[in-house]
Structure formats: C-alpha cells, structure tokens
C-alpha cells in the first residue's frame, strides 16, 4: 500500500527547500507562550484555552497541515513533474496513500512536538499526551482534506484558507451547529476526552468527533484516489 520510493521523493521535496524551515518557529511559539504563561504565574486552566486551543489547534495545526498537505502532491502538479510519477506502473491508491502518510507524519511531528512540550509545561503528562493525540487526529483529517483539494482545484491553498478562516474561524463561532463539521473541533474534542481535566474544552462529543474525523479522512482519500485516476495535467493558471 505504501511505496517507499514515493515516500522518499516526497520527503525530499518537502525538506529539500529552505522555506520549510520557516515553519519551525510556529510550533516553537506554542511552547514559548506556554512557558511565558507559566512564568507569569497563570494556572493551566487559565492559559490552556488561549495557548493550546487558540494558538495550537486553531492556528498552528491548520496552517502547517495546509502548507504540507497541499504541497506533497500540489507542488509536483504545479511544476509538472507529477507526470513522471503518474507514468509509472503504480496503483494511484499507492501514490495517494504514500503522500498522505508523509504529510500526516510530518505535520504531526512538527505541530505535535510543540503541543506535547506545551502540555508538559503544565506539569501534567496526561495533558501533553492528550494534545499530541488531538494534533495527530487533526493532522490526519486536515492533510487528507487538503491533499484531496490539491487534486480538485488549481488553487488548493486558497480554498483551504477560506475553509480555515471563514468556516472554522468565523462561522463555527457564530452558528454552533456547524461545529460538527469542523476538523478543529474534532482535534480539540479528542484532546479533551483523553485529558479529562477540562483544561481544553469542546462542544462536540468525542465519539462523534472521532467518527467524523475518520469519515472525513476516508472520504477525502477515496476522492483523491478517484480524481488522480482520471487526472489531466492542464497548463499554468492565468
């Protein structure tokens, strides 16, 4: 199911350029804010929501997942080298799954390290594990979604930004019912359930969140495989 050559090529595509090092300050910022909050004498109950949810789950995780998820396949489509992979006798399923695996692992490691350390700053190992698990669930669903978007549209990053800013940022705060359709809330909900101390809180119940996250991941991946099967390379955007 997983092709190691594709995995290697994708990793090289991601880390071969210096610009991905620009993303490392983001997770470091989460840890820094947690340390600063601790230094100021705030309790984890006070800083958990702004730092872990407001900064970590609502900003750092979606931005990292967007850049990584949309570029594992999207950058190859952009510069036209995707042809070389598509011309090889590989099942399209293998290409998509290998790329998704790389995207999820990279996003989870990058965002999760910061979240885990920030959780540990609170002095509760359980909180650290909980936010790490939430990050992993979020990374899986986000990356699958953004990977599928990179096959559906020529501007996957902008569509992803509209989703993150308008749908998750504005609408879910105004209309609470739409939270069931927000990946950010799945991630927070999983973290809340594992932690159990109420430092992070969500309005979506954990079983629903987990089921929806799996549904989004599977659905988006199937869609991506299907799109890649009948993929046609078009010219550059205007």
């Amino acid at each position: 199911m997983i092709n190691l050559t594709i995995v290697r090529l994708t990793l090289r595509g991601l880390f071969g350029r210096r610009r991905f090092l620009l993303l490392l300050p983001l997770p470091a910022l989460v840890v820094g804010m947690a340390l600063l909050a601790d230094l100021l004498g705030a309790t984890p109950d006070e800083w958990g929501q702004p730092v872990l949810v407001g900064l970590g789950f609502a900003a750092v995780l979606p931005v990292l997942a967007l850049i990584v998820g949309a570029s594992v396949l999207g950058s190859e489509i952009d510069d036209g080298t995707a042809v070389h992979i598509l011309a090889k006798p590989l099942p399209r399923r293998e290409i998509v799954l290998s790329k998704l695996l790389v995207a999820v692992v990279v996003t989870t490691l990058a965002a999760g390290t910061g979240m885990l350390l920030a959780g540990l700053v609170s002095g509760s190992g359980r909180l650290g594990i909980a936010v790490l698990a939430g990050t992993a669930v979020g990374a899986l669903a986000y990356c699958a979604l953004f990977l599928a978007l990179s096959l559906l549209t020529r501007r996957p990053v902008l569509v992803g930004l509209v989703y993150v800013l308008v749908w998750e940022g504005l609408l879910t705060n105004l209309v609470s019912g739409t939270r069931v359709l927000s990946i950010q809330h799945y991630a927070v909900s999983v973290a809340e359930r594992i932690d159990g101390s109420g430092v992070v809180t969500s309005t979506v119940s954990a079983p629903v969140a987990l089921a929806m996250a799996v549904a989004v991941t599977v659905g988006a991946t199937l869609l991506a495989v299907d799109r890649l099967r009948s993929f046609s390379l078009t010219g550059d955007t205007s």
Partner: protein
Amino acid sequence: MTDRAAGVIHDIGYQRYQGPRLGRGYAVGSLLTHSLRTAYGLGRSAKAKVFPWLVVGIVGVVAVVVTAIRSVTGEVVLSYLDFPDAVFPLAVLFCAVVAPELVSRDLRSGVLSLYFSRPLRRTDYGLAKLAALIGAVWLLLTGPMLVMFLGGVFSVDGWRAVWDEVGDFGSGLAYAALHAVLVSAVSLLIASLVSRRAVAAPIVVAAFLVTLPIVGLLETAGGETARQLSGLFSPETLLVGVRVWLAPEPDSMDLGGFGPLYGAVTVALVAACAGLLLVRYRRVRA
C-alpha cells in the same frame, strides 16, 4: 576583402522614436493601476476573479445584513467604526489572496529585471505595489460601508441626523484606511519574501492568526498593566487600541494611559514594514 558592396547596410526605413518620453511618473502610475486591477482580477481570466470577489461577496453580505437589520428594527448592530474590526479576518484573507498575486509571481517568473530596466526605480516598484494593495483593501472595506451609509441616510429623519451620519461615515472611512495601511504593509512584506504563492498565502494568514492568542493570554493571565498593554501584540487589537484612543466609547477596551503608545506602535510597525519592503527590493536579484 575590400569589396564594399558586401558591407552595405540598406536603409529600409526604420525610424527612431522622436516623441515625448512618458518617464518615471507615468511608469509608476501604470504599475499602480495595473496592480490595482490585478488585485480584483480585472482584465484577467475568470479563475483569477474567483477568490477576490468571493471575499468581496462575504464582506458585502455582512454589510447588507447589517443594513437590513437597521432599516427594519432601527437598531445599529455594527457602527461604521465597528465594521472594519468585524470583518478583519476577511481583510486578512483578501491580503493572503492578493499580496502573493501582486509580488510573488513577479519574483518567481523573474520579470523584475524587465521592470527595473525602465525609468521605474526599485523603491518605486515596492511603493507602487504597496499603494495598490492599500487601495484594494480600502475599497474592500469601504464599498460595503457605502451600502450601509446609503441605507442609514435614507432611514434617519431630519438634516441634522443625516449630517451626523455623514460624519460617522467619514470617520469610518478613515478607520478603514488605517486598517488597510497596516494589514497591507505587513502582508506585502511577507509575500515579497516568498516566491511561491501557495506558501506565501498561509504564512500571511499565520502572521495574523498566531499573534491573537498572545493578547488573549496576557488578558487572562497578566496584571492590570499587562492587560492594558496586551493589545500591542497583535495587529487586530492594535488597531482597536488606536480607535479607542482617538474615539473613546463606554465599555470598550481599557487602555489606561497607553493610548498614544498604541498610536506610536502602529506608525512604527507600518514604517518598519514599508522600510523592510524597500530594503528587500533594493537587495533582490533582478
């Protein structure tokens, strides 16, 4: 070897251009109008129009809803000063769409040498792009505000009320200009450093998103002084701070005596971003 007939250059009627040269000012003006049109995808394919006009549509819907509520119930949900604050994330989204479109494409396709071989100077290029983005964001904010204004003018009674409405609208336009200048300066600087549009856009959004929780943290965790200074750490609350300083309202953000500091930090941030943008274009390989 001395056969002169082989070396004759025939005069086939080429003429040198003898007319007036339009010069640097004209080049800057052209770049400005062209960039402003690019921001909204005018004169380009339908694909280039989708994202800017999607944002315009959402901001417009907000303005129409606010106007409708006011004309039906008479209650002002969002004042002209509240409006730019309320749609701030959408202005950021607009910048994330437009700023990479304005500068990242030129960097990536290597056409800067063509620009700089004209009378246009390097600083002119940066400033023209910045002015175009500021204009585009200002139009994004004030266009829908005009809808609110027309709805408001026709729903109030008496000349005095109309005059008050005009005054409020004027301060709204000025506040929208402040928003446009700050958001554009920050996002254009970021976009000018990244040559790939797909990477520049999320980084622009991240710059605005990650700073907001810092404010939230200082508000909940810090003391009174920390709370009054907390707004300085995010562009969004910085702008609100300037507004509260210049036009104090009851139950708005508590600034203590730090109002002028908010104004100074805003000016310094804009100047720093614009300065770094010019430095970037002085250094960039063309």
